[in-house]
């Protein structure tokens, strides 16, 4: 971006209305889905819907869709670092054997693969 003279992109109230209605609908769906027994996938569905909602807020309400590239990089860096924190720490927990009597799925896969030699 060489210049910051980009004319400000003004999002219309109509667009905002569509978004808020979508967000409300998604909230309804998330509550509904919570009452359906999807087992392990309940949390996946819940987080997926939440992420769609968050994405709509970031892109439209926060104008990230119309922001300079640099802003998009900042957003992605933030999400990436959060993912780093969560996944790398969880990888330690997941790979511990018999962590207080709770066998994490990862541990089971590993010990199964190694024929319980681990």
């Amino acid at each position, binding site marked *: 971006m060489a210049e*910051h*003279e980009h004319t*400000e992109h*003004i*999002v*219309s*109230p109509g667009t*905002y*209305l569509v*978004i*808020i209605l979508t*967000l*409300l609908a998604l*909230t309804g769906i*998330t*509550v509904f889905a*919570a*009452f*359906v*027994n*999807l087992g392990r996938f*309940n*949390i996946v569905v*819940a*987080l997926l*819907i*939440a992420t769609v*909602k*968050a994405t709509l*807020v*970031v892109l*439209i*309400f*926060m*104008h990230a869709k119309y922001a300079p590239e*640099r*802003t998009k990089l*900042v*957003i992605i*860096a*933030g*999400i990436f*670092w*959060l993912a780093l*924190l*969560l996944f790398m*720490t*969880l990888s330690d*927990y997941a790979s511990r054997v018999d*962590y*207080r009597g*709770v066998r*994490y799925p990862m541990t089971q896969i590993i010990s199964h693969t190694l024929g319980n030699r681990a």
Partner: protein
Amino acid sequence: MHRTGALYGQFKTLEQQKDTATLGMWIFLVTEVMFFGGIMLAYTINRHTYFHAFAMGSNTLSLGLGGFNTVVLLASSFTMAMAVWSSQTSKKGLITLFLSLTIFLGFVFFGVKYVEYAQKFHHHLVPGKNFDIFYCANNPTKCEDIDAADMAKEKEELEVAAKADPDLNAHAQLYYSAYFGMTGLHALHMVIGAGLLFWLLRESVAGKFNAEWNNPVDIVGLYWHFVDIVWIYLFPLLYLIDRHK
């Protein structure tokens, strides 16, 4: 005191000033992501390890109040976005209207939160010496705000959970640590946001914002939307852990 819309000394143009402030706010929001991320990690690990206690805890929350608050906050994001639009199109009256609505919705959220917190305190569900997940089940007369049908359900759930987890009370306390930690932190951020909104309201009434200069409305909007996004995640994580029994 610096006048809103005036050019600060270190900048060359108003455009540079706007660009700088907006980038600053985005970077600040990234720090907030990492800040909440830490407690999210604590939540994730403990939810996985003590699922029964977390499910139990989650089911003692009022889905109605939580859902209502979610709607309120989403609506406040809408009114905030409209306030930004109003400032971009120089509609002074509408800026004031939408900022006021946003503040109002924020206070509705606080009100509901207060009701929820007061209830938890009353039911001995605040982490500490008096924490007791079985309190209402053992003393139904002390918890009249739970009706008979819900009380029966709760007793049943407690029995099942206690069988699955002999140390249910201690682990439920972890759930409530997460609950109060995460919603408390969120509420604190909302209070700060409300303060910023009051400041914006004052400036907008004084006619400071228009198509040429609306940066403060924009960046407070960014902050407010972020606070909304945190709640978008908190709602399913805290209220919807295991509702399908």
